[in-house]
């Protein structure tokens, strides 16, 4: 029924939404901004590197323009009531991400220097461009898939199991494309995927679906432990089990950032579904206890906490990264050094975990705050979509996506700014990383889908 209504609305809106698509409507103006921004960034880089404009430097801009305009056209055509802010925001993030990868990532291929011809095909920038195209296709596929998201909801255990199996496989045949560090990837011969990124999305789907079904009973049927009333284990159990298994795998893998996100998103969705503040408080207390236990038991946890608590003691040792990150922010000051003109490359692995520090140095406080504002806008938009969605599953899923985007960007920004200990998660869309970009694109695709089904 509502599908029919939106169909009618779509037909009525075609004149405005599709035929006049490239005329200066507010939407096309919003789309021009990220393209302009990206074109300026690559102009800067080209001038800095060669002193003139080289056509090859603008290939990423052209690809981004093609992806954005194509996606906007397809969405306007088939999802005319989609949220008009999401795609321009994604455009800004992706454009910034491409510029930062071009600026920061090592010029040599991902697998290391050497190997000879066709090297450009395996540089970081080339890969990110390919992932952008794939991500856009995935976004469109999810956003345009006919009918509603019942197919996601119905097979929740299947989805999650598939994700867990992929993640478990990394324990056996995992690799790290750079040749060292945590082996969180699957793949070979230059094509790699990080299952924990996909698992994030699948866990969201699982939680949204489970909580939609069991929300009522979770609230109503309660068991007693001493003086406390808790949800009945029969209803809470399956969810805790699945979630706990995910956490366990991540902790086993030492992927602390992802584990932290899973925990946060779980609490957020539990609160969204039940509105019980005591669950959140209990969860935060557990997190605190887990943090202390982890600090005592695991060296790699203790290392990060120490490096965070007192970085100045070992500024050239184990706190090197965080101190260099703060130095990058400090040297950015208000207006920044200008893209390509600072020294953010002094921070090890700046192009993934520390891309926000590079933004802080080269775009300054002004640029950094603008990026923060854009993320706040994206998150705000996701919650907006959640509030306007009709079905509980859609609302929970959109809220979960908003919470995940919010927590993920907060965790890495706060990590680079020494607000919390550093955990290795990507800044959505901006950091180098294909799996992260693809998953983020799919999540925006889901938001677009849900936004077009609004009541």
């Amino acid at each position, binding site marked *: 029924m509502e599908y029919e209504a939106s169909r009618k609305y779509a037909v009525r809106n075609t004149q405005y939404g599709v035929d006049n698509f490239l005329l200066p409507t507010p939407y096309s103006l919003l789309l021009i901004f990220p393209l302009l921004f990206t074109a300026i960034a690559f102009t800067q880089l080209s001038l*800095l590197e060669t002193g003139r404009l080289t056509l090859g430097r603008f290939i990423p801009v052209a690809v981004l323009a093609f992806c954005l305009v194509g996606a906007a056209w397809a969405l306007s055509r088939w999802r005319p009531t989609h949220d008009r802010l999401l795609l321009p925001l994604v455009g800004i993030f992706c454009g910034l991400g491409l510029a930062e990868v071009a600026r920061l990532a090592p010029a040599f291929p991902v697998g290391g220097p050497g190997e000879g011809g066709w090297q450009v095909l395996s540089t970081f920038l080339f890969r990110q461009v390919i992932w952008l195209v794939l991500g856009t296709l995935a976004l469109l596929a999810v956003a345009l898939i006919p009918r509603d998201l019942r197919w996601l909801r119905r097979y929740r255990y299947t989805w999650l199991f598939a994700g867990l199996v992929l993640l478990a496989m990394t324990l056996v045949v995992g690799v790290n494309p750079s040749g060292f560090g945590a082996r969180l990837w699957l793949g070979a011969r230059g094509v790699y995927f990080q299952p924990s990124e996909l698992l994030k999305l699948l866990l969201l789907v699982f939680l949204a679906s489970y909580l939609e079904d069991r929300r009522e009973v979770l609230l109503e049927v309660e068991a007693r432990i001493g003086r406390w009333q808790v949800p009945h284990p029969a209803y809470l159990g399956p969810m805790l089990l699945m979630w706990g298994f995910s956490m366990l795998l991540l902790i086993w893998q030492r992927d602390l950032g992802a584990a932290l996100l899973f925990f946060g998103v779980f609490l*957020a969705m539990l*609160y*969204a*579904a*039940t*509105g019980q503040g005591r669950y959140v408080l209990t969860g935060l207390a557990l997190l605190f206890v887990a943090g202390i236990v982890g600090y005592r038991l695991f060296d790699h946890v203790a290392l990060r906490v120490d490096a965070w608590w007192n970085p100045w003691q070992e*500024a*050239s040792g184990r706190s090197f990264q965080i*101190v*260099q990150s*703060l*130095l990058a*922010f*400090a*040297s*950015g*000051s*208000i207006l920044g*050094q*200008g893209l390509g*003109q*600072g*020294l953010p490359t*002094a921070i090890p692995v700046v192009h993934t975990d520390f891309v926000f520090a590079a933004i*802080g140095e080269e775009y*300054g*406080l002004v640029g*950094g*705050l603008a990026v*923060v*504002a854009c*993320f*706040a806008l994206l*998150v*705000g938009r996701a*919650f907006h979509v*959640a*509030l306007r969605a009709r079905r*509980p599953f859609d*609302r*929970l899923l959109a*809220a979960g996506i*908003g*919470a995940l985007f*919010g*927590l993920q960007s*907060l965790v890495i*920004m*706060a990590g680079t*700014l*020494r*607000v919390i200990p550093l955990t290795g998660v990507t800044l959505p869309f901006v950091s180098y990383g294909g799996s992260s970009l693809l998953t983020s694109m799919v999540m925006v695709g889901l938001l677009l889908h849900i936004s077009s089904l609004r009541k």
Partner: protein
Amino acid sequence: MTQNIRRIGQFVLLGFVLIAASMVYWQLARAPGLVAREDNPRLVQAELRTQRGRLLDRRGEVLAYSDVVPDPSGLGGVVRRRYPQPEASHAVGYYSIRYGTDGAEAAFDTTLRGQLTSLDRLLHRPQVGDDVTLSLDMAAQHAADQSLGEHRGAVIVLDIATGEVLTLVSHPAYDPSTLDDDWDVLASDPDAPLFNRATQGVYALGDLAKLVGLTGLLSAGITTPPDPHTTSLDDMLAPLSDSGYLATARQLGFDVSSPFDLATGPGLLPDFSSQSTPRDLAVTPLHMARMVAAIADDGYMPVPTLAYASLSSAPDRVFAPGVAVSLQAVTPRFDGLAGWAGVATPKETGDRPLSWFVGYAPADAPRFAIAIVVEGDDSGAQVTLPIAQQTVGAIQW
């Protein structure tokens, strides 16, 4: 559920406010202190790009300049410091990213380094410094370097009227152009080639203690022996008590460092309570050059400077003009050069003997004061006088 979702949204947005606040904290409040940290690699990068000004001798000969080496991966290239006149090494000093600065490079660092305006900073222009003209006379410097040759020691020549240092040689020396590569060898060399003997070497006066003694006697108005060169030091100093001798040394400023652009040290006054003799009084060659300048200039001891035509400080009067005239009268003359040669024995140096020469030229109308020390040689005037004559003869005036 609406209310719950709204609350979560508000909570997350609060997080972004916290991020914004901490950005303001690190990028504004803490930024000045952080940027100045020694481990900030940006400082090294800026340093590598800084085009220091040139160092010139008094006739404009280039002693040090910055050479921009194009660097394809950086902005504007990396700067190398070059020293075309290595025989001026101890006066010019060195500039090294790794080992800091010394000599004139250190003394005039602020000027050489220059300053960045806020526009320069905005446009990422490299810092370009100003040239500094030194008082050195490269012809005399070259002659002193040549004539000192393989000897270990020091030669210093001052302009008596202005205090300008025309010559400053210390051997063994080093080549500042290759300092970074040679550092380990230089730093561990027992002959201490990095040590500036002319300004920091404190040498026992030995025979030259007579000069201090005579100054003390004349200042106190005590009759001096008619021929001080044949009278023994003990006989000469008999009317002057130990404390009188020490007072004279203090009057000449030997107990404090000479004011100078380069690092110098105070002299060592003999400790008469522990078997020291007046001959043990030890000072820097720079200070002895100042003292003979005072003899040649009515008792005015010039304040030395390494900068050409700078506003030098007014000289101190360390003794009366009459004392200066009397001292001039007993100063031996050697072809237009007047001065005292002497030897300090191992007893005083505690090591090897050394030969001194301190004097002024021209003998009749003094313009330049010179002090020479040659280590490990007790032949006195025989070794030091030719060095003095060649150096003074090379001064272009």
